[in-house]
């Protein structure tokens, strides 16, 4: 009886130990693989290291889109600060001036190098943070 209980206790400890190990591995992997979301003002304040991939959300500034070959540059604004963005490729259908975008990429030497551009499949989309900010402006 006592032996059986002891065995069960060991089993329980082993299971707890293993799952704790598994969960911490997953959490560790999570922390190194997640993309933080910033608005232009937040990003300029935050002092981001250049090897760190982030998401930048804001509005495409009116009149700032400039295309040269397949490279496109534009300014993303939150109506307070602006960040220049460069991207090589075809932009999504809903990408246009004065509308919301979320950009995945790296901030290197004052230029945001985009890996991917998302424009939501909804013509009235605006990043949630901005809809609050714009109310104030």
């Amino acid at each position, binding site marked *: 009886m006592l032996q059986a209980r002891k065995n069960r206790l060991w089993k329980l400890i082993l299971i707890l130990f293993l799952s704790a190990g598994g969960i911490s591995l997953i959490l560790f992997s*999570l922390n190194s693989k997640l*993309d933080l979301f910033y608005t232009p003002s937040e990003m300029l304040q935050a002092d981001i290291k250049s090897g760190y991939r982030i998401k930048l959300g804001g509005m495409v500034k009116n009149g700032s889109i400039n*295309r040269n070959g397949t490279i496109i540059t534009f300014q993303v604004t939150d109506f307070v600060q602006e960040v220049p963005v460069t991207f090589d490729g075809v932009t*999504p259908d809903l990408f246009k001036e004065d509308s919301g975008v979320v950009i995945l990429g790296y901030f290197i030497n004052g230029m945001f190098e985009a890996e991917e551009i998302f424009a939501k499949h909804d013509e009235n989309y605006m990043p949630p943070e901005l809809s609050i900010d714009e109310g104030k402006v």
Partner: protein
Amino acid sequence: MIGEISHLLSLSAVLLLTLVLIFNLFFSFNKSHPNQLTLSMRLFNQSCWLVFISFGIYLYLAISDDFSIAYIASHSNSQLPIFYKITSIWSAHEGSMFLWIVFLIAWSYLFLNSLNKNHPLKKLTLLMLSLIILGFLLFLLLTSNPFERILPFGAIEGADINPVLQDPALAIHPPMLYLGYVGFVISFSFITAYLLNGNFELQWEQDIKNWSLVAWIFLTIGITLGSWWAYYELGWGGYWFWDPVENVALMPWLAATAFMHSLFASSKSDVLKTWTMFLGILIFALSLFGAFIVRSGIIDSVHSFANDPERGLYLLSFSGSITLLALTIFAYRLPALNSSKLVVSGSKESFLSMNNILMITSIFSIFLGVTYPLIIESIYGDKVSIGPPYYNTIFSPLILIAAAFIMISIDALWQRSMPLRTFFITTVPPTLLSLLSIYIVWRLTGIFSILAFIGILSGLLIIFSYLFKTIKNLSKKKYINKGSAVAHIGLGLLFFAVSMNSILSYEKNLNLAPGQTISVNESVQEFHFKDIRVLKASNHDVISAEVSLLHDGREISLNPQKRKYATRGQITSESAIHASVLKDTYLTIGDQLENGSWTFSLKINYFIKWIWLSAALMVFGMLLTIFKKKAL
């Protein structure tokens, strides 16, 4: 007027279901009356028919352009073909919830009426199902009413369906997916009824086996169609984005797959019964969690519907209570359920349980990936997102271990340990052959990627070991489980195709003026931009480019388009795809520059079709299992 009838029918269904519940909960202790169940069933069936007719009328309203109904007015249009008038019903929240409920009722109706009249679990299952249906009907009518009128005057013209949704694959994707999701309400309520009943001598596996298999097939088809649509319609060239909404569909799928495997084990060898029950409850709980994530708008995604806290709260509390109820009953009965039978290590069921654990681990990891941003945001206020790298690192070791267990378990026996000799005979040849194939891939492509090689290895281990087994058994005229072999080869093919796709596919961005020809690389020797034209179609304008390619010595002509829709002013891209056995040539047209030239995105996607083929194989394997003569 007709709209009100439809509305009223749904309301009456609510009334009848409430009656069923009150009637049974208050009088259930008076066991003597034999007609109680008959009467309850009659009431239940009638309420089902009320909802069916109500939905039928709603279909009619959509087809006949009744724009006085707010939902139809904002999602349909009189210019649409009838097919899309119907599918516009499930293009947004209210209507798709209606469809979801109709399917829920259809499954329940069919299942309950197929059960024998004197089945001991019939009454409890009926109660569980009535409770769930009632909860969702109330959710529909209280928070997301599709019958709402525009008063006093209806709209003259509808606002049209979102053009990216005007597509046959997307039209059938939600119904298939919903049929899968809600199909597991049967295992959920039947198992809960079994646990409540407390007579554990009863056999329950056989009664729900085929129902769950069919639901699994729908779920698989639904997910695949969604992925296929995203590939050719969204113009991103990808098929899976680890988007939160894709993840919440994958979780019930994994749970359902684990459930079916342990269902086979528990009916073969009497072990894992408790575990199987837990999984049977978990699948529907995860489906409900998915509905909450998608419909509350709590997570921002391509798929999510408009943000509405009221809906989220209702769904969360209702799904939460239902799940909690089932789990409480489960926990309460747990001590009585524990069977004394142990899993023999080295037996078929031991490997099967290992893979069950792996599937649960994957579900947990996905769950964490979906909820982690929410947790971080509510604690630290930071917005974060979790992308493919997380899932790739988590999944690659898991699938390799799973593949190894699948390979070993092929020749393992039920309830008996496996001799070491058999172990080596089954595992060594496929392992060597897979490693050799990877070496060949490495030499041929010159690409070395650990993650992809793990994926290829996992896929090939499964494919080779099943092929060997099939050939061996066919030559000896021994029995082979065809369904299992086909489905597992499908799974192996999926791992293989996804990994090959990830290392071989590439993308080129080009900039050309009409009439210009350039050379892209050794494979695409010639890219000739012939002409660009503006055409008019019924409800949109088309900009159509004519491009001809010399790809691997073969001439291909492609017509990528951009469409501008009249009603919404929305622009969509139509990628042009040329498919060959190994790869797709995928061309999207971008924007016009000031000097009159255009940008293009050319993607060469390898093994894409093999991914769809692998899903088809899995479904086909499952069909073979269902129609197999020998039961379980």
